[in-house]
């Protein structure tokens, strides 16, 4: 916010900050359609404007190709936040598949359009699935490596397929049911209509559980996994979809140029795509298109400066990042209201959502049947003690020579509050991390609802009904509060990519359920009025509640809270105790790590004490309170 703007706001003259309750005007209701009509009209008339020559129509075609590439990289880099600096590889695969199959087997270009996408997507799946777990810069260098390997392979002409450094010439043009596409104007329309269809799909995807899952991963992959998002699969999906779009761009490029050669697919090309996404704004669809326009048109406008134009371009990139690091058209999340979520059939008044999200008490009861909210549970195989929800048996974790948790047996009774206490560094959080699947125990077994969950991944464990919060709050900072909580029901929803793009009946219903559940939980923790604020802008205490609401929204049987009262003042702690007791009444089982003895003694039904990774005592709160070993663990041994 500029200084002038903030002053205007302070004196009440600035533009009104839109909120959920602002009056609906004709403009705000139909803004999307009006914008669409204007852009459509602009695109349709562009080639017929008097001063537009074929040359500039071709420029617009290349803006289209780069826009498509930008959009495709935007999925990987913008939505999921994966550093992909070898995206040109997929573009190259699309172009070469088109070139090879068209020149040697005379497959029509129009058939090759989907085929290029498929081959590029398949290639992306093959090469990224072994490396997808690599972190940040390591993944970045691998993508650079993949890009270079593809380019060098094209140069080296294996099996005489790629034509070596000169590439392949004589590729035909597309033929649409008898209409041959070869003039500049025809290519322009052909390309931009394809882009229009793709943008339509991408916008819908962005506003579905898939788009949100991608954003959760970008914001905090660990928290996303712990909220029930299958991080690995969604990352792969992003790469595969991104590669498919890049493959389409390759097909368009090859059929327009009628030739392909390795020079078009260098590392600098990949880095230009990277710049397109960042120039436009991470995760912004109009931004990517605008970024492509800048990257393609800028050098054209400065053509008379010949060799200096790229010099200016480099300078412009740096200046952009200094003065507008968020990009030209960043995606706005706050202030769009719940409408911004793009979910159909929401009630007129936001408040009417809350009662819709009230859960069916049956789903909070520990499942005896094999299906919980659409999640197929494996059959019960483990014998549990009577009334126990969770049991750990001899759970042990060693980090190198250090035994963090040693042979620990923990029993959590259904419908009760169990507290795990102990001095700092005793291994409490480590035990929680094993229960929720973030660490794999070195030895021992963890049983939940009669099922062995020891070797399951975090997102699967969540969908079985164990939710958690973190010791150091882990939210999705740049998403709104309601979006944060909508990650909870994610793991119980089933709609896939296609359903999201087509807005199938089931998908629309599922989305409405997700937002209603989120609304109910948000209201339950008293944060409803912050629904459209970004999570990072909430004060600390409210962030804790937001995290609890997110965990509740997964409709768990067992809620694990890691030091929920840390950083809260006395009043806030008391409120928390009231909330926790209300949750137990609602049917949840609670497991806490807690240092605040007032909270522990006040609400716990059972207390286990951990020191140096071992259980040193357990029992009713008052017994543990007076236990000699516990006192020693906290205060040290009294000298005689």
């Amino acid at each position, binding site marked *: 916010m500029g200084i002038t703007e903030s002053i205007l706001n302070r004196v009440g003259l600035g533009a009104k900050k839109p909120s959920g309750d602002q009056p609906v005007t004709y403009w705000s209701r139909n803004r999307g359609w009006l914008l669409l009509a204007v852009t459509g009209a602009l695109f349709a008339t562009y080639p017929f404007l008097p001063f537009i020559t074929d040359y500039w129509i071709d420029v617009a075609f290349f803006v289209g190709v780069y826009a498509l590439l930008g959009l495709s990289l935007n999925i990987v880099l913008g939505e999921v936040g994966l550093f992909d600096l070898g995206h040109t590889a997929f573009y190259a695969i699309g172009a070469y598949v088109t070139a090879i199959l068209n020149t040697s087997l005379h497959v029509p270009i129009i058939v090759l359009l989907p085929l290029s996408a498929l081959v590029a997507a398949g290639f992306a799946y093959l090469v990224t699935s072994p490396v997808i*777990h690599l972190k940040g810069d390591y993944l970045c260098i691998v993508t650079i490596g993949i890009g270079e390997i593809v380019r060098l392979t094209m140069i080296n002409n294996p099996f005489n397929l790629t034509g070596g450094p000169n590439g392949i010439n004589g590729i035909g043009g597309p033929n649409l049911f008898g209409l041959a596409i070869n003039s500049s104007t025809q290519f322009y329309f052909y390309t931009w209509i394809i882009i229009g269809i793709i943008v339509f799909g991408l916008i819908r995807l962005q506003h579905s559980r898939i788009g949100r899952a991608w954003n959760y991963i970008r914001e905090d992959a660990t928290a996303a996994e712990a909220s029930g998002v299958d991080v690995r699969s969604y990352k792969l999906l992003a790469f595969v979809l991104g590669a498919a779009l890049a493959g389409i761009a390759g097909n368009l490029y090859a059929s327009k140029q009628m030739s392909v050669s390795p020079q078009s697919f260098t590392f600098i090309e990949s880095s230009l795509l990277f710049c397109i996404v960042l120039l436009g704004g991470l995760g912004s669809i109009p931004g990517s298109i605008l970024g492509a326009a800048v990257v393609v048109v800028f050098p054209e406008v400065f053509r008379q400066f010949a060799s200096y134009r790229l010099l200016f371009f480099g300078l412009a990139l740096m200046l952009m990042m200094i003065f507008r690091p968020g990009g030209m058209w960043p995606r706005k999340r706050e202030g769009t209201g719940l409408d911004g979520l793009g979910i159909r059939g929401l009630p007129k008044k936001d408040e009417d959502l809350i009662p819709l999200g009230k859960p069916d008490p049956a789903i909070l009861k520990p499942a005896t049947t094999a299906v919980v909210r659409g999640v197929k549970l494996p059959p019960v195989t483990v014998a549990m003690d009577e009334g126990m929800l969770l049991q750990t048996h001899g759970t042990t974790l060693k980090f190198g020579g250090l035994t963090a948790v040693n042979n620990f047996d923990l029993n959590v009774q259904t419908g009760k509050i169990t507290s795990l206490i102990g001095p700092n560094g005793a291994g409490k959080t480590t035990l929680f991390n094993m229960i929720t699947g973030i660490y794999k125990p070195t030895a021992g077994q963890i049983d939940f609802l009669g099922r062995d969950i020891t070797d399951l991944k975090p997102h699967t464990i969540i969908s079985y009904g164990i939710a958690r919060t973190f010791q150091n709050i882990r939210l999705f900072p740049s998403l709104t509060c309601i979006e944060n909580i909508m990650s909870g029901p994610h793991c119980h929803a089933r709609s896939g990519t296609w359903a999201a793009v087509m807005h199938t009946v089931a998908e629309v219903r599922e989305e409405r359920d997700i937002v209603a559940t989120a609304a109910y939980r948000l209201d339950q923790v008293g944060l409803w009025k912050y629904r459209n604020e970004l999570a990072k802008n909430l004060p600390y205490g409210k962030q804790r509640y937001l995290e609890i609401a997110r965990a509740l929204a997964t409709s768990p049987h067992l809620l694990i809270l890691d030091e929920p009262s840390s950083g809260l003042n006395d009043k806030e702690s008391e409120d928390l105790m009231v909330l926790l007791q209300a949750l137990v009444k609602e049917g949840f089982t609670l497991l806490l790590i807690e240092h605040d003895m007032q909270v522990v003694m006040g609400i716990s039904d059972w207390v286990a004490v951990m020191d140096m990774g071992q259980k040193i005592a357990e029992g009713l709160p008052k017994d543990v309170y007076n236990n000699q070993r516990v006192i020693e663990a906290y205060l040290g041994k009294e000298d005689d």
Partner: protein
Amino acid sequence: MATFVEQLINGLTIGSFYALVALGYSMVYGVMKLINFAHGDLFALGSYLGYTLLIASSSWVTVHFGLWGGMAIAMLFAFVGIGLAGVLMERIAYRPVYPAGRLSLVVSALGMSIFLQNGIMAIWGSRPQAYPAAVVPSTRFSLLGLPVTTLQVVILLLSFTLMLIIWFIVEKTTFGAAIRATALDRSTATLMGIDVRVVIFFIFALGPALGGIAGVMNGLYYRAISFNMGWTYGLKAFTATILGGIGNIPGAMIGGLLLGLMESLFAGYVSGAWKDVFVFVILIVVLLWRPTGLLGEKTAEKV
């Protein structure tokens, strides 16, 4: 056997260029968490600075100070010049962008790289230039019956000395401890009384300066230089850095030397055209086996 030793020496020489550039990469990365894509172009700029000095006024430097003297002055010139360029680069392109986060820094670095590359082209032209034969020492001697140029030996000795000095500074001195502390946690380092600005100044002066020297050596060794060679070397050096474990000083050296050796041995025995493919495949395999590079520390994320 003869080709083996020849390829070995050749590989070590190229490897030492990679290692010197990778050192700068790694140092900057350690402190700034920034992949400095412009680093390779500073290396190229160093090559051009040395070239300009050596051809100036009909090799005035070489004529007055002799072959080796001229070489030394050219390297010193590139060292100082590129050191200054590195500091300037940090001021212009990175410091103002730093608060905006890592992705913006990457774009700024790419912008800087494009700027430098085209700047070199604007000044020295797009055609490759060549270090004149008159300024390059061509004496040879026989090592175990193999002809070796004195230049090769000098390059190797100098590179290893420089690497040792850097290793000593970073690992053994108090200032080195300040650098390592800043790399681990910038705000804590500040609280401990470390002037982070001095550390950054030093990193951005020394890292690129090493690349500048490597640039001159590269020019003397291969003679031909071109405005866009920074991309290739930058990419290779980045690969070497990751191979060894990013932010790790001995890792960068070992990564660079290994990369040079693998490249020249593969080119000598299997295929020159596929050598870069081989290098990247090896890199990917290494990362699958050790996700943080050969010497990189295994970091368990705290949750």
